[in-house]
């Protein structure tokens, strides 16, 4: 029992230390590396941005739109009882910009992009491609992780903004079933929103991007034991990213509440 606990703790600290180290190295390669060492971000970042942003847009749009629809369905009838159905637009707008937009987008990207990062880089680890880079004196963090970090750091906030808009559009569509005028719905949504709502949601998404990239790349570099190890690490990467995204979200919300 004690030995098991010791092993779990050792693993936890080993992973936590590994992720912190990877984050530090990645920040170096993103901010200082290009001025001190050879990098090829122009060649690699744009295809990655396309893979992360353009190719995730459909699923992010669908999920956000449907959640907007569901949110109005679930809350509209209660507000209608109290004659407050017009408030549903504000509820959807604030929920999406502060919470649901960034969180749902991050969850979709954990599943779609984080898993792909771990599986892709983990395969490179197994087939000795990462070792080959090191032997060629090409830093794997600079060559593989930093471009992914930049790409997801740009694309996750962009997707979050789209998710906010599409979630509100879903709500607006469903609002018509409560006889709400679409233009009135849009006006109400805008009047409910503040700049801090928008900024807090988009701000959170930067941290979610960091979590997804660092966890998935760290788990990829720790792949051992062939395909079985790759499958295990991909699963661990997705679960850890999801948990950490929600933890970061909670911390952010608590911090925001204290500040306000």
């Amino acid at each position: 029992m004690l030995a098991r606990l010791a092993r779990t703790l050792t693993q936890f600290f080993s992973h936590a230390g590994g992720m912190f180290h990877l984050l530090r190295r990645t920040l170096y390669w993103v901010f200082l590396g290009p001025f001190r060492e050879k990098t090829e971000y122009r060649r690699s970042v744009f295809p990655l941005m396309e893979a992360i942003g353009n190719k995730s847009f459909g699923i992010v749009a669908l999920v956000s739109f449907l959640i907007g629809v569901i949110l109005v369905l679930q809350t509209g009838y209660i507000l209608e009882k109290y004659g407050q159905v017009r408030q549903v637009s504000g509820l959807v707008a604030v929920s999406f910009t502060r919470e649901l937009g960034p969180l749902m987008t991050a969850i979709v990207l954990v599943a779609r992009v984080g898993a792909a990062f771990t599986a892709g880089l983990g395969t490179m680890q197994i087939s000795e491609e990462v070792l080959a880079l090191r032997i060629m004196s090409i830093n794997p963090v600079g060559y593989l992780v930093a471009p992914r970090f930049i790409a997801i750091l740009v694309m996750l906030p962009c997707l979050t903004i789209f998710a906010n808009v599409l979630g509100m559009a879903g709500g607006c569509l469903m609002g018509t079933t409560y006889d709400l005028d679409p233009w009135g719905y849009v006006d109400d949504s805008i009047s409910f929103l503040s700049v801090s709502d928008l900024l807090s949601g988009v701000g959170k998404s930067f941290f979610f991007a960091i979590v997804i990239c660092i966890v998935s790349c760290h788990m990829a570099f720790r792949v051992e034991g062939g395909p079985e190890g790759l499958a295990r690490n991909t699963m661990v990467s997705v679960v850890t990213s999801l948990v950490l995204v929600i933890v970061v979200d909670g911390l952010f919300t608590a911090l925001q509440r204290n500040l306000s």
Partner: protein
Amino acid sequence: MSPIIELRHVRKTFGSQVALDDISFSVDRGTNFVILGASGGGKSTLLKIMISALQADSGEVRIDGVDLAQAGEAEIEASRRKFGVLFQDGALLNSLTVAENVALPIRYHTKLPAETIDIMVKMKLELVGLRNAEAKLPSQLSGGMRKRASLARAIALDPLIVFYDEPSSGLDPVATAVISDLINDLRTKMGLTNVVITHDIQSAFEIADQIVLLHRGRIAAQGTMKEILQNEDPLVRQFITGSATGPLEVRSSDLEYYNDLLNL
């Protein structure tokens, strides 16, 4: 002339398991040096130590005079530019074409214009007989072609040494012969020192100037090809003749088997 690679009393353990013990040998410049041994004999660990992917627990590993155990990160980086590695499965980057793979180290470590890099890539691919495959992705290549493309990448920066990890594994006899010819060609044309890790006795005899035979992490025999062929040690004889019985027996003895069955 001082040897280009020198190992002295190298030892490596993984937990309680001794992977390498008291390994000492030197490799002269411009020679083909073969490290032979059965699977699990410590060959891959030895290769990883020589290419500084692993650190030995004790002993000295010198590459062109630099002791890797004492060297800092910058010195290790510098020594890595003196060698190339042909990995067992090629380890080509699957997202890049053959030409891009070969160009990668040149782009990273030189400031040459793109046109010059293109010419250099074509020359390296011509050396390994793959000039018509430059636009192909690694997944579109056969096993032998992948190894040759990997070899072109290994020699892209004109290294002093090339390490080969099981160059003939998974290849048919013709492809194996092509790789063996290439190893000999590169030594002649580029003056390279080739260090080949293999268990394939046939290809070892086609290329080796010097041979080291590893057995359970220790050197069982060492010498020129002629000396190895004349060696009367039963272990060496078994490895050369490929006999199923002898000191290299992979099956446990009858006594061990009975004890195992009866939990003794």
